[in-house]
């Protein structure tokens, strides 16, 4: 399908330096299988898993080692075969701590029984597919890590009529989605078909920012023969890939404040998630590896790497030749929304889309000064909030006032802090306000 579609444009947004040139033309390389993997039992939004193995147990590649507790959760699997060394609390790259299964790799990659084998997509029932997505431990690989099986089982009163795959990849530096689209377009299309089948939807869009013309062309070619799947080129503007902004850009529908995409009949998944679904169905293997962009000025050989979950950041950096100079800052994810880490000894999880090593110069940030009320934060806010006012109230501890200014609607894209000429910690103070507001609501409930 190639009919011209009317695109909508969200308000606000920024054009930070893209810095994708370091890795956008580099083929995905498979990272060396590490001697030891640290597999956290919490790699998703929701409840952590219960371990299914104990110290000394032998595990196989793809074996389920963590059982989800609760509906909003997802199982975790071993990314190597070997012996469980211990189960202990570790630092996660998101800045929190969680229990993890530490496995010594025997290097044999003895595989677990596949979840499914050789069945064609037409022969699966919807229930079987939903269960497969759950059993394969698939979560949103764009960064939110929301369990995908939950998204693929919407309540009956929410009728979904449009599926969007998010290939915008608007974060600077990151190119893992880009490379996936260029190298494995058929996996993405297959995953899209699975999602469309599960949700009984005939309209599917794959949205890509127009700074990736090669990916757009390749995806268009791959989608040519597919009914109902259309490739959309979106203008390059951060945060084009933010869920609400993406839905608006493609469909013109606005997710109501405080609502979910399903409220307006739309479901968004990352292209990586779609590919993971495809792989689970085609190979029967659960999600045990992901593509990670390793970049930043301090990395010796910036790369896109296929990494087994649980591999430490240090091993991944080593695979990329180490660093040219001692990095000043380590970031899990992109530079706009990623988390700065105090150590390289954290495992790659389902959430890790990028590892950035910033040089001293790249990490430099000016000291904050007085707000001059230039309102640039307001102009760039894709939600049209008044970040400087919310921030001012937050810094004074007036969280109720911050709530009245819609602090909870903030999507934490970071445009406000990026653009602030006074370098004020706008997003940071809004995040504090959000936390306090949610805390207060819990107390009052």
């Amino acid at each position, binding site marked *: 399908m190639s009919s011209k579609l009317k695109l909508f444009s*969200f*308000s606000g947004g920024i054009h*930070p330096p893209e810095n994708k040139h370091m890795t956008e033309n580099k083929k995905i390389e498979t990272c060396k299988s590490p001697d030891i993997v640290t597999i956290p039992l919490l790699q998703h939004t929701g409840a952590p898993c219960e371990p299914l193995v104990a110290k000394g147990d032998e595990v196989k590649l793809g074996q389920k080692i963590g059982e989800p507790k609760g509906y909003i959760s997802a199982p975790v699997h071993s990314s190597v075969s070997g012996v469980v060394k211990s189960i202990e609390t570790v630092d996660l790259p998101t800045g929190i701590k969680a229990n993890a299964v530490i496995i010594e790799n025997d290097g044999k990659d003895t595989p677990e029984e596949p979840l499914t084998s050789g069945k064609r997509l037409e022969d699966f029932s919807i229930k079987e597919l939903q269960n497969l997505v759950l059993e394969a431990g698939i979560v949103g690989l764009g960064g939110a890590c929301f369990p995908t099986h939950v998204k693929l089982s919407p309540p009956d009163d929410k009728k979904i009529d449009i599926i969007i795959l998010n290939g915008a990849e608007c974060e*600077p530096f990151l190119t893992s989605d880009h490379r996936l689209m260029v190298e494995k377009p058929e996996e993405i299309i297959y995953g899209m078909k699975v999602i469309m089948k599960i949700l009984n939807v005939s309209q599917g869009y794959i949205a890509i920012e127009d700074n990736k013309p090669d990916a757009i062309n390749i995806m268009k070619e791959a989608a040519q023969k597919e009914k109902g799947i259309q490739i959309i080129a979106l203008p390059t503007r951060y945060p084009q890939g933010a869920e*609400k902004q993406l839905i*608006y850009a493609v469909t013109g529908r*606005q*997710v*109501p*404040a*405080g*609502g979910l995409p399903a409220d307006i009949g739309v479901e968004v998944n990352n292209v990586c998630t779609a590919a993971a679904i495809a792989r689970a169905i085609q190979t029967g293997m659960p999600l045990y590896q992901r593509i990670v962009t390793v970049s930043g000025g301090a990395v010796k050989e910036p790369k896109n790497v296929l990494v087994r979950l649980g591999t430490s950041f240090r091993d991944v950096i080593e695979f990329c030749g180490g660093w040219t100079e*001692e*990095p*000043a*800052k*380590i*970031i899990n994810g992109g*530079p*706009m*929304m*990623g*988390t*700065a*880490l*105090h*150590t390289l000894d954290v495992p790659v999880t389902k959430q890790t889309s990028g590892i950035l090593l*910033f040089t001293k110069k*790249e*990490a430099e*940030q*000016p000291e904050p*000064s*007085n*707000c*001059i*009320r*230039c*309102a640039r934060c*307001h102009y760039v806010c*894709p*939600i*049209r*909030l*008044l970040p*400087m006012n919310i921030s001012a109230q937050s810094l004074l501890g007036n969280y109720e006032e911050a709530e009245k200014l*819609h602090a909870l*609607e903030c999507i*934490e894209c*970071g445009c406000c*802090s*990026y653009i*602030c*000429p*006074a*370098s004020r*910690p706008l*997003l*940071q103070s809004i*995040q504090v306000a959000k936390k306090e507001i949610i805390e207060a609501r819990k107390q009052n409930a």
Partner: protein
Amino acid sequence: MSNYIVSSSPHIRTHESTSRIMLDVIIALIPAGVVSIWKFGVKSLWVILLAVISSVLTEYIVQKLTKKTVTINDFSSAVTGLLLAYNLPPGAPWWMVIIGSVIAIALVKHAFGGLGHNFMNPALAARAVLMACWPVHMTNWISPGSDAVSSATPLVLRKISDAATSATSAATSSATSGATAGATAASMELPSLLDVIIGNIPGSLGEISSAALLIGAAYLLYRGVINWRIPFTYLATTFVLTLFINGWDFYDAFYQLFLGGLILGAFFMATDYSSSPVTSLGQIIMGIGCGILTTVIREFGGYPEGVSYSILLMNVATPLIEKYTMPKIFGEVGSRV
């Protein structure tokens, strides 16, 4: 153990800074300053230098005395000094310039919390105080090129000629005062439109050349330091209202746009970040409000010009305007994108 920097996202920042914005304003004000020095000679230069230096010095002293970080390198006090100078007559006495700077920086800016917290435009507030205290010095206009020849600004002439016309036409019997005013107006004709736009007129030292100010304004718009909302609605409102009040005299309505510091006020003073609304709708209301007040003061008030008072009045209305013009957020009922 290595020490990696841990900070909240985002991890990249724009290169724009407060000092860069202030520097842009200074750059934008240069053409008008050059015309002023060309027209009024070195007198202008002295007032400009004195105002800038005393403003920066005042900020330095205030911040030292209150044990705060000295922030004179953000250029904001230099901008205030420059704007104050542009609002003074070219021959303003030195002590008046210094007093004005101290009022602007110490009283209007720092007493209320410093940069970003002043509730009025500091330069305009200082001008208003000086005007109230030393009206003679503040209206001692001189003609460009001549040496200390007292003159009247075109707006004053316009006011006198208006009064004369209405007086002569209304009451032929008691025409004494009218005739006198008429004679004065006749002897001092209104300058041509070209002179007015270039700046070949008496007036405050930075306001005279609308052409030079517009060049600066275009630069500020291009750099994104200001947006069109306040200045354009301000000028449009003034134009339309004057047109309406003066019986569809297009020439006069156009002519008076370039008088009395309207261009300086609309682009450089009413757009002051601290004392104007941040919301889009609020900025439009600010512009319209300034336009209405300026026209009313000019046409019906006792003063010949009303730019500074109208901006100051709208400055104090700013918090109220903001309160009632909060934008609808994304996804809110009835919001536009």
